[in-house]
Each structure stands twice: as structure tokens, then as C-alpha cells.
């Protein structure tokens, strides 16, 4: 060991200016910048010239003008006298509705089918394989068409509706079911439901803490279930059942009362569920398979019961693989919901890029607004799933 100072490293004198990687990087980037500037200058000036030639207005002024067309289904009040901004909102809500329904149902289907793959039942396992391989390999648009044109349009007409106990009707116009109508006092029941969730949250925390300290387990699941059902039920009885059901009634040509799901929504939600469900099932299968078998054996050897092994050992580890895959499946479900436009379900894409664009001709504004919305929805999904992923991720040594 010597304490002599290291000789200073002299930078190697390069032959030319261009041999210095820093200069080269700067030159490449300047070239790219110039190229991009030229590209954008060209398309912007072309677009302006073209729009002037075709008499297309620009800007977002159209949003406050009257749209003048009706929309098949709307979650908020809407008619032809409302503005384009309102059509945007109606479409957005319809998109969120179908995506939400699709995500929930696809997750349920996907997890059931994915877990069935590991069933000891030979038939169940085959069926899960056949399901995944069939629906994953058929284009989604074809499935949407199949449900809409081949299945739902083969349903009977209103007069011959399929009748489930005079409460639920299924016919070619859609699915009709009773609507729950609030009466005064219903807010108390909703309030108690919320209270039940809060109580369960604290109960879980308390039970976890107690187990950490004393090792005693508390039947959290059963107690939670009891609170969740019992508390609203008690308030429901105390308040004297502040709800009534509005049953649909079948006339000769129409059904009045109740609420209904239009066949477009059913077809799209079904297709999205079945298609994405197959992909989620595959993700679940991959996740469970990624847990080494030794984990199960080790868990058995310390005497855990089979149910607890799944719950405490396999699932938490499988989730690390499943959650990132779920994230991308959810995002592609939202993007695929734009296929609504093929069967006329009034989602954002249909009412905005379809009808509104046709009427106003303002392609650039409308397409960019729509893209921005889908981008934002996907960012939100990604954000939530990443939060969720952090909670299941492996905690490594820092």
C-alpha cells in the first residue's frame, strides 16, 4: 500500500471533433430536432391549408353549439337540444360504464377459469383449457358481432319475451329488470352500509395487530360478513324498508317500468368479458405456475392446511406475476371498448369520433380529445394497479 497520489488521467486527445462521443450525441440530437421541426412545420402548414380549402373551422368553439342528434342510451339527462360538450360527457360515461362492467366480470371469469386449470377434476381442467384457447384466438370484433347479430338478435320479440318470474324479461330489445326506487329514509341504510365498511376496516386492523401480539386468531371473515349483512339489515328493518321495487310490465308491443339493458351494451360487455376473461385466466395460470412447487411442499411440512396454503403462500406470490399482467389486460379492455362503434353502442368513440365528427368535420380536435380521454383512463388504471402492485410486491433488502 502506498500513499502516493494516483497519476491524473489525461483525457485522450481524439483525432477529430466528430470522434468525441459528446459532440456526436449533440449533433445527432440537433439533427433529430431539426427533422422533427421540419416535419411538424410541414404537417401543420399542410393541415391549415387543407382545412381552409375545405372550409373546416378550427378550435373548440363547436363544443358549445347544439349537437342536434339523439343518443340511444344515456346515464345523464340528454336530448337533441344539448351541446356537443354534453354528448362528450354522455359518451364518456357510457365508455366508463361498459369498461367498468367488463373489467369486473372479466376478472371474475378469468380468476375462476385460471384456477380451474389446477383443479383435480379432469373435465373442469379440459374445459378451462378449451375456453382459453378458443376465445383468445378469435378476433374480438368477430365475437362482438357473434353476440350481437347471431345470439342476441335471435332472442324472441317483446310479445314472446323470456320471462323469469314476471320480474325479469329477456327479449330482442334487451334485458328488463326491476328497479330499486328510494323512499325517504333510504339514506340511513346507505349510511349504515358505509359504516359497515369502515367498521370492517378497523376490525381487520385490530385483529391483525392482536395476532401479531398474542398469536391468537380472530374469525375476521365471518365477523366481517356478519357486519356487512347485519348492520344494513337492522337499519332496513328499523326504518321500515324505505325502498320499493318498480317491476317491468309487459304490454303487447312494449315493456313499461323497471330498467333495461340495451342489447348493444349486453353484446359488447359479453364479448369484452369472454375475450379478456380468457387472457386474465392465462395470466392467473402463469402466476400460479410461477410459484415453485417447493413453496407448497414447505408449507405442508410446517403443517398448514391446504386452504391456508393457497391463501397465505401461493396467492400472495402469484399476485406478483398476475398484477402487472392484469394492468395491461384492463388497459386493453378499455381500448377495445371502442369496438362499440361497430354495433352502435353509444360510447365516447361512437358519439364523438363517429357522429360528432361527421357533423362538424373537425377531425383534429375531436380525434385528439378522444385519444386524450383514453390515454387518461389508461393512466388512471395504470396508477391504481401500480399502487396495488407495490402492496403485493416482494419486499427486498434495501
Amino acid at each position: 500500500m502506498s500513499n502516493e497520489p494516483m497519476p491524473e488521467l489525461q483525457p485522450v486527445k481524439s483525432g477529430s471533433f466528430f470522434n468525441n462521443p459528446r459532440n456526436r450525441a449533440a449533433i445527432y440530437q440537433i439533427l433529430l430536432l431539426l427533422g422533427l421541426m421540419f416535419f411538424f412545420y410541414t404537417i401543420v402548414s399542410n393541415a391549415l391549408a387543407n382545412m381552409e380549402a375545405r372550409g373546416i373551422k378550427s378550435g373548440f368553439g363547436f363544443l358549445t353549439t347544439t349537437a342536434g342528434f339523439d343518443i340511444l342510451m344515456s346515464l345523464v339527462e340528454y336530448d337533441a337540444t344539448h351541446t356537443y360538450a354534453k354528448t362528450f360527457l354522455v359518451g364518456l360515461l357510457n365508455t366508463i360504464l361498459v369498461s367498468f362492467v367488463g373489467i369486473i366480470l372479466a376478472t371474475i371469469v378469468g380468476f375462476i377459469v385460471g384456477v380451474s386449470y389446477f383443479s383435480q377434476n379432469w373435465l373442469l381442467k379440459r374445459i378451462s383449457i378449451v375456453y382459453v384457447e378458443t376465445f383468445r384466438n378469435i378476433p374480438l370484433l368477430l365475437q362482438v358481432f357473434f353476440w350481437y347479430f347471431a345470439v342476441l338478435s335471435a332472442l324472441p320479440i317483446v310479445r314472446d319475451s323470456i320471462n323469469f318470474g314476471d320480474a325479469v324479461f329477456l327479449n330482442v330489445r334487451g334485458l328488463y329488470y326491476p328497479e330499486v326506487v328510494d323512499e325517504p329514509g333510504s339514506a340511513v341504510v346507505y349510511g349504515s352500509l358505509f359504516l359497515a365498511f369502515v367498521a370492517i376496516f378497523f376490525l381487520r386492523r385490530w385483529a391483525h395487530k392482536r395476532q401479531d401480539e398474542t398469536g391468537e386468531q380472530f374469525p375476521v371473515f365471518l365477523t366481517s360478513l356478519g357486519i356487512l349483512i347485519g348492520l344494513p339489515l337492522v337499519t332496513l328493518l328499523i326504518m321500515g324498508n324505505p325502498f320499493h321495487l318498480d317491476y317491468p310490465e309487459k304490454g303487447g308491443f312494449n315493456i313499461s317500468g323497471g330498467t333495461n339493458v340495451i342489447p348493444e351494451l349486453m353484446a359488447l360487455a359479453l364479448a369484452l368479458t369472454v375475450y379478456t376473461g380468457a387472457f386474465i385466466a392465462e395470466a392467473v395460470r402463469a402466476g400460479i405456475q410461477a410459484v415453485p412447487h417447493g413453496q407448497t411442499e414447505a408449507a405442508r411440512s410446517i403443517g398448514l392446511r391446504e386452504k391456508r396454503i393457497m391463501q397465505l403462500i401461493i396467492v400472495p406470490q402469484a399476485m406478483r406475476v398476475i398484477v402487472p399482467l392484469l394492468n395491461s389486460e384492463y388497459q386493453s379492455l378499455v381500448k377495445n371498448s371502442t369496438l362499440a362503434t361497430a354495433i352502435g353502442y353509444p360510447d365516447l368513440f361512437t358519439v364523438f369520433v363517429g357522429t360528432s365528427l361527421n357533423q362538424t368535420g373537425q377531425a383534429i380536435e375531436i380525434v385528439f380529445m378522444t385519444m386524450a380521454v383514453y390515454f387518461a383512463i389508461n393512466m388512471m388504471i395504470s396508477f391504481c394497479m401500480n399502487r396495488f402492485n407495490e402492496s403485493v410486491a416482494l419486499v427486498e433488502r434495501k
Partner: protein
Amino acid sequence: MREFKPLPAQPAPIDEVGVIGWLKNNLFSTPLNSLVSILIIAFLASVLPALIDWLFISANWVGTSEAACKAEGAGDGACWVFVSAWMQQFIYGSYPDGELWRINTSLIALGAVIAAPYLLPNELRNSVGVPLFLVFPFIGAAFLDGRLFGLEYVSTDYWGGFSLNIFLAAASIIIAFPLSFLWALGRRSEMPFIKSVCIVLIEFFRGVPVLALFFMGSVMLPLFFPEGTNVDKLLRVWIVLILFMSGYMAEVFRGGFQAIPQGQYEAADSLGLSYWQKTLLIIFPQVIKISMPNILATFIMLFKNTTFLLIIGIFEILSTTQTALTNSNWLGGHAAEGYIFVALVFWCCCFGMSMISSNIEKKLDTSHRN
């Protein structure tokens, strides 16, 4: 001296071997399992016979028009005559009868180009196989168009059917290959501006619904070209497909890059290879090998998504089916037959590709799980 005589071995219990044993272990091992099995068998028994009857036994197979399915004595099952009568349209679109050989030739050529790297001798693989691959889409398009080769001109309005799905998907992925590789390299680059441009490109094309991109191609793109130029619709769609595919493939390649050990870069550097030598000779072959299953999966997605072109009025196979279903000579409601045929065609292609992909994956998998 007494001899030890073992008793003869007992036969295995009757419910542990043979068909009964198999049934007991696989279908009826627990009460819950038995219930599930019975439910499934009941469901299959109620659905399958009717389905098989409709699909095959009472189906109509021969004839040329709808009358064959409506005639006295015709079965009341599926009308496959619908599919066979429209077969040429389903495969070739409205391409002129006399020129169909051009589509067939192009399809064979496509197969040959894909097979070339396996058939060519080693020394020709890179110098001939790769350029052949990259110029194929242009030559193929020109050949189908016909003007450049002095053949009869066939406007892209007449292209269609399943061959169009294949050509569009293949032509897009071939061009997307080098483009997405560049984007992926850019995303890894240390030059901040190039890196951010690539990130924006990739995230844009991945984050936006492909349908919105198609609308962009058909409604917005014409606005960006100089006034008066009329770019062919199919060409615009091709551009959109290439960009869309590049976004996804760039992410696939990024995954591949991340799997390459740092030592490979360092070893290449220590040999004094330049950036492009290092990237193309050392890194690229390994990235391709690792990413192959994902590339195929992405391609399957693109291939299925070519049906979305129906919405902007390109006559690919699903769009042809919709047209056939509304044809005045075939108004008998043959939606199920048409969709089943298209589904079968896609299923065979996609399932075949996913088989290849999982084979590759298995070959590369060296882990010792399970």
C-alpha cells in the same frame, strides 16, 4: 426346514385401476368434484348433441345458392352452402377472377421469404435473406397492384378477403421490425432528447385505441399531406399499422434488452467493436432469440386486429362476411355460419402461431419449476 412362502399378491382394488380407477381419481374424488363433474356432463349432454346435429348431421353441404338450403327435404341445420358460395370473396375479395394467380403467387412468396433463413446456406442468410425479407412488402404490393410489372392494374378498392388480412399483417410487422428496434434502442439511449422522443412515440402508439389510430389514418392523415395529393387509403392504413405495431414491438424488444447480461456489452466493448457492430452482431441476435415468443404474441394480436379495419371500410374478411350477410340473395340469416367460418380460419392461424411460440418458449426454458 420350513420354507418361507409368501402369499400371492392381492390384485389392486377394483376402484383404483383401469377405467373405474381413472374415473374415481379424476372425476369423482371428492363430493364437490363429483357435483362439478355431474353438472358439466349434464351441460354437455344437453348442448353437444343439438350442436353436432346443427353443425354436421342436418347441415346442407352441396349447392350453389340459398335455394339449396330452403328446398324441400333439405336439412334444417347449418347452411354451409353460404360459405362455399362466398368462398372466393372470403379469401380473395373482389380481385378479378383472371388475376387470382397473383395473390396465390404472393402468398407462396411470403411463405418462401419467411422460410428463407432456414433454407439458405449460412453464408447467404444475412446477405440475401434479410434484404429479401425487407423488400418483400414493397415488391408484393407492386405485384398485386400490377402497374409496375406491366400487368393489368388492379385498384386497391378490389383487394380484400382473408388474403388482405394476411398481407397487411405481414407487411406491417416486416417494416415494423427495424423501426421498432430503432425506437427501442432510442429508448435505451443516453441522449436525452432522442430518448424522450422515442418514449413519447412508443407510449403514444401503445396508449391509444387502435381504432382511434385507424380513424386518424383515414380522417386526419389526408389533412397532413400537401393539398391535392391523394394517398391511397390502404397505404394510409398500412402506415398506421406499422406505427401501431412498432409501439408494441419496441416494448417487446425493451424486455429483450433488459434480459441481456451487462457482461455481453462489456465483452463487446473490450473487443473494440463499434456501437453498431456491438448492437447488431452481439446484442440483436440474443434479443431476437429471447423475444421471439413475445414477438409472435404481438403479431397474433396485430393479426386479429386487422379485422378492425372493417370499421373504416376496408374489405377484409369480416367486412366481406357482413356484406354477404346483407346480400339480397342470402337473406336467410346465415350469421352463425359466416361467423363460425371466419372464427375457424382465424383460430387455426392464431392457435398455430401460439403453438409455435410456446414451443420456442419451452426450448428456451431452463428453469426447474414444479
